[in-house]
């Protein structure tokens, strides 16, 4: 899921694309297998999504009578009402609290750490910290979930949103530091130095120089972490118990269990809980692009 980071495309890659306009045709000619696969796969990606959306607008009676892929003749919003009646707003707010509460601090402290690692190059401690974060990339969350559970119990945080937030922050740090560090490293050293000459503190340089210059990377890292935390399942599953503390993915599983064979209601709950991410992604993409130009147009 490092996708967002790659797919946003670094500025270097974009210029490279522009330099070679001619290759496209050549590759396209030879690659009819890939071409047809590309379209077939697109259909495979779209079909389940299409199905879940149209099903969410069918009545339960209608669902069993009509062709699965036929859109409903009389779309209904009843299923969405059913989902809303089942406390989905609360789960939604829980997810918002957890996602914001974990993503924002994680990105801010990762950014500070990345800045320190770049600015303090040669410092023994910072090198050690950097290596530790790199090692951290290899630790799967599943493998350490038992001690995390123990720590959360001992901190008396079990069954609270904070219990999900704290480990989420920790596990967002390694990759965020790696990406931000690589980005800050590309900022010309002279800019830092001249600001330093002008009497700015490192803290000031961090926020007034490094922050605006690394905005595209910050947006990318924020989106990536936000997504991972929003969709997180294991931490809420293990660290919470009561229905009031559920986040969306966990609530979704419980809700669908409750709905049984009311497939339109299941479809509505999946659609409703997914919609905000798709909308945010659509908005984030645009901001991502403007971030790119803002950061490098100077």
């Amino acid at each position, binding site marked *: 899921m490092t996708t967002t980071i790659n797919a946003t495309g670094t500025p270097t890659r974009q210029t490279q694309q522009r330099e070679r306009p001619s290759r*496209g045709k050549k590759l396209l*000619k030879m690659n009819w297998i890939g071409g047809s696969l590309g379209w077939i796969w697109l259909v495979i990606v779209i079909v389940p999504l299409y199905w879940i959306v149209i099903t969410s607008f069918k009545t339960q009676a209608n669902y069993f009578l009509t062709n699965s892929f036929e859109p409903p003749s009389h779309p209904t919003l009843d299923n969405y009402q059913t989902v809303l009646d089942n406390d989905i707003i609360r789960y939604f707010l829980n997810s918002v609290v957890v996602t914001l509460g974990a993503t924002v601090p994680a990105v801010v402290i990762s950014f500070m750490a990345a*800045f320190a690692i770049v600015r303090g190059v040669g410092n023994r401690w910072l090198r050690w910290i950097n290596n530790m974060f790199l090692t951290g990339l290899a630790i799967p969350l599943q493998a*350490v979930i038992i001690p995390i559970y123990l720590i959360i119990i001992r901190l008396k945080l079990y069954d609270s949103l904070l219990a999900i937030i704290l480990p989420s922050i920790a596990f967002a740090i390694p990759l965020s530091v790696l990406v931000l*560090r690589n980005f800050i490293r590309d900022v010309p050293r002279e800019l830092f130095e001249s600001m330093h000459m002008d009497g700015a503190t490192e803290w000031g340089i961090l926020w007034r120089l490094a922050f605006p210059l690394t905005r595209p990377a910050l947006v990318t890292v924020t989106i990536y972490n936000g997504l991972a935390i929003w969709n997180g399942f294991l931490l809420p599953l293990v660290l919470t118990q009561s229905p009031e503390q559920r986040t969306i993915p966990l609530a979704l599983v419980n809700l669908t269990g409750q709905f049984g064979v009311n497939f339109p209601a299941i*479809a509505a709950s999946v659609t409703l809980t997914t919609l905000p991410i798709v909308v945010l992604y659509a908005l984030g993409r645009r901001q991502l692009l403007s971030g790119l130009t803002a950061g490098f147009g100077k």
Partner: protein
Amino acid sequence: MTALAPPAATGGRIHPRGGRSGVTWMALPALLMFLAFGLVPLVGVLLLSFTTWDGIGQIHPSGLTSWRNALADPELPHSLFVTFEIMIISWLVQTPISILIGVFLAAFKRYRGFLAVLYFIPLLLSSAAISLTFKALIDPNFGIGEGLGISWLKQNWLGQPRLAMGVLIFIVSWQYIPFHALIYQGAVRQIPTQLYEASKIDGATGLRQFFSITLPQIKYTIITSSTLMVVGSLTFFDLIYVLTNGGPGDATRALALEMYKKGFMANLMGPASAIAIILVLVGLLLAQVLRRLGGRGDESQLEGM
């Protein structure tokens, strides 16, 4: 996420002048958070594997009891087998398709942005939502098989071991092929055009170009993508938990799920910690093997991305 190979710690370029020293404290918040909820738990899981704990009461040190318990359980080799089964089959399915689609996307000009946006959608959804969608979609009584009146779709997909494994692999591919295709797309765009032009003058066909230029040129990307696939497959949890919960029987009970069941269902935290250690070791081992295969042991695996 956790699916990354540990890149070699080559550190940064070494600057002739040392860096500023007044910045070290800025790394402290991240360091403390990561120590508390990342590194301490890693040490903790090792320590817990030498104890007996039911998840609620007191923790008793018990030497090798938990390890003996974990290793004697026939579910452990079985779940290892299932894990490798998922890993190998999903790699075999995903890699060729991802490469072909990636090459296609790299060359394709019109609608490419539009296509990339659609390819992205599966990556936005939670594994829980994806599992629930497919579970409903292939339901033998109320799914599309019934709705379309196609009898071969009406099978009990999640009730038979072979079929359940097939469905799992399919969903994994559905979720991740677009991602890997986009990695390959980026890699193919980096190949110098001159290589294709030169080979064309020499009379190479498209197929020949694909095998003699494209594939060798994206070798490191294949290693990177494979590392992400292989190491990532070790941590499939949400998907299996929601889709089959390891069933039917124990046909899809992979290592991470086995650990969860042992620890949080059977309340055997000691043996579950031992399984967690095995999970970490298998992951590190695989990452190392793939890195050696790449023949660039000293450089970052992330480079190909």
